[in-house]
């Protein structure tokens, strides 16, 4: 029983991380048809910026998280303005450009801070454990869950209640028709990149908490599973991404524990294949 509880909490924490990366990835793809292979790099930027702020920068943990998230947001906006926008209508070059950034950023981080994992600052309040149904569960799992839930609620409110949310939902359906109503849809592109970058960078900051350390390839390894989540959840669907994140996180944890380590990662791919055969358009097939 306690093992099941621990595995569930850990799987949910991992799922929360996947969601933070996948939600932005999904919105960006849904709205812009851009497969952003640089999204993992944004997570790494957030993780390192938080780590730097919390150690050399001398900031407290929460301030460091805010700082890291802000840096990731700015990086995402720059990415959109400098690289994605000029390559609009050239999807192949766009993909190459994001792949390039996805490779260059970890290399840059490695060049500056080395390839080894860096211990991540853990505030005392979050480094403990709590007892839950007889299991000893690290507190940071709940921090991740709470953060992901907050982001999910905020994204849903943004999509359903704001003018830009309306533009994004409409743009996911038919971008050209949105412009034909007199709306400059490129502003929504930048905004979606900013939101996606913020969520990924927050995921980066919290991944440091979850894994206890940061390393240059942190984002890249999470990105693979985030892509699985996006495909499963349906491109452009935030709620679909949330459901798929939980499914992937749980399946991975349980399979890794009860079968051989590594089989869990494989089982996620099997899960994806089965789902694509049964529901080719993803879990929901529509947005939000």
């Amino acid at each position, binding site marked *: 029983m306690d093992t099941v509880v621990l595995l569930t909490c850990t799987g949910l924490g991992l799922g929360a991380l996947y969601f933070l990366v996948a939600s932005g990835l999904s919105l960006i793809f849904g709205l812009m048809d851009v497969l952003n292979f640089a999204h993992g790099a944004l997570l790494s930027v957030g993780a390192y910026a938080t780590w730097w702020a919390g150690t050399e920068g001398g900031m407290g943990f929460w301030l460091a998280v805010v700082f890291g998230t802000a840096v990731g947001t700015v990086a995402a906006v720059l990415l959109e303005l400098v690289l994605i926008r000029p390559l609009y209508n050239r999807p192949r070059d766009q993909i190459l450009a994001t792949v390039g950034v996805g490779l260059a950023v970890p290399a840059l981080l490695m060049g500056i801070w080395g390839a080894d994992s860096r211990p991540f600052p853990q505030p005392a309040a979050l480094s403990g454990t709590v007892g839950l149904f007889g299991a000893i569960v690290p507190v940071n799992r709940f921090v991740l869950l709470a953060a992901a839930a907050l982001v999910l609620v905020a994204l849903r409110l943004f999509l359903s209640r704001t003018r830009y949310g309306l533009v994004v939902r409409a743009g996911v359906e038919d971008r050209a028709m949105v412009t034909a109503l007199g*709306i400059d849809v490129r502003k929504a592109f930048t905004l979606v990149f900013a939101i996606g970058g913020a969520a990924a960078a927050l995921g980066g900051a919290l991944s440091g908490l979850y894994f206890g350390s940061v390393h240059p390839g942190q984002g890249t390894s999470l990105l693979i599973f985030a892509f699985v989540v996006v495909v499963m959840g349906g491109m452009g669907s935030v709620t679909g991404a949330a459901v798929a994140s939980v499914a992937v996180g749980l399946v991975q944890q349980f399979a890794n524990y009860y079968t051989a380590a590594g089989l869990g990662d494989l089982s996620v791919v099997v899960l994806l294949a089965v789902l694509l055969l049964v529901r080719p358009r993803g879990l929901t097939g529509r947005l939000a």
Partner: protein
Amino acid sequence: MTDSSFLTSGQTDPAVGASSATSAAAADRAALLSVRDLRVVIDGLHILHGVDLDVAPSGVTALLGRNGAGKTTTVKAIMGLVPRTGSLRFAGTELVKLPTHLVVRQGIGYAPEDRGIFAGLTVAENLRLAERDGSPAYDLVHELFPELKQRAGQLAGTLSGGQQQMVAIGRTLLNGNRLIIADEPTKGLAPKIVAEVADVLERAAATVPVLLVEQNLALVRRLAGTCAVLADGRTAHRGGTAELLADEEAARRLLGVGRPAPAATSVPGPAPTPTVAVPPPVVPTATVTKEVAP
């Protein structure tokens, strides 16, 4: 060119070609939108090679032609939804270099051929998305289409074709537009709904000029004063609608109508037929409705 030539042109001259020359020249000066030498190339394919068209400053101007003639592409080119060259002068402003959203903000409302409805949004959200200024004319839209008010919370994807068309036209009436472009608004609708849409277009045209792409010639005859006919990606004829439709030979040659169409290729008469790109029976070709990103 004098005013009197404008008044007489097309009224008395039975030769359609001659009347089109004079009325086109007159319209050129007063036109709200003047399209000149409009060309569109998509993926190396020349779709339009020289469309000329004038939208009259009031009433309905019809854009006619057989299926595949290039009507929808012309309209998309005006809107900037496909790459285009040539000249598009709209009330003194050249549109050809403007991106789509700025073309629209010149005061052009667009109801596309596929209706362009957002299926996952509610009726109210579809309309709200189209709001461009502080005072959207919901009074007018709801008066013309009371159903849109009753169904405000319904997902637009679950509406009937006629109701979706009401949303599409309603969007163009919400803002103080200077021109409305409607691409086959009655296509695929039941006769009763066609009449309803026609009434709305007639009412709208009383205050806002309309460029209407339409295959329903009875409707064209009723609403449109002037027209342009496309064939094979070019303007084949410009002039008064009544004269064109009265001239059975020209109507058949340009529009493929006039009497029940015989089996392929039998276009009688001595007239050279450079415009026949599609065999006379109006065979619906697969219409490309996929929007091209700006």
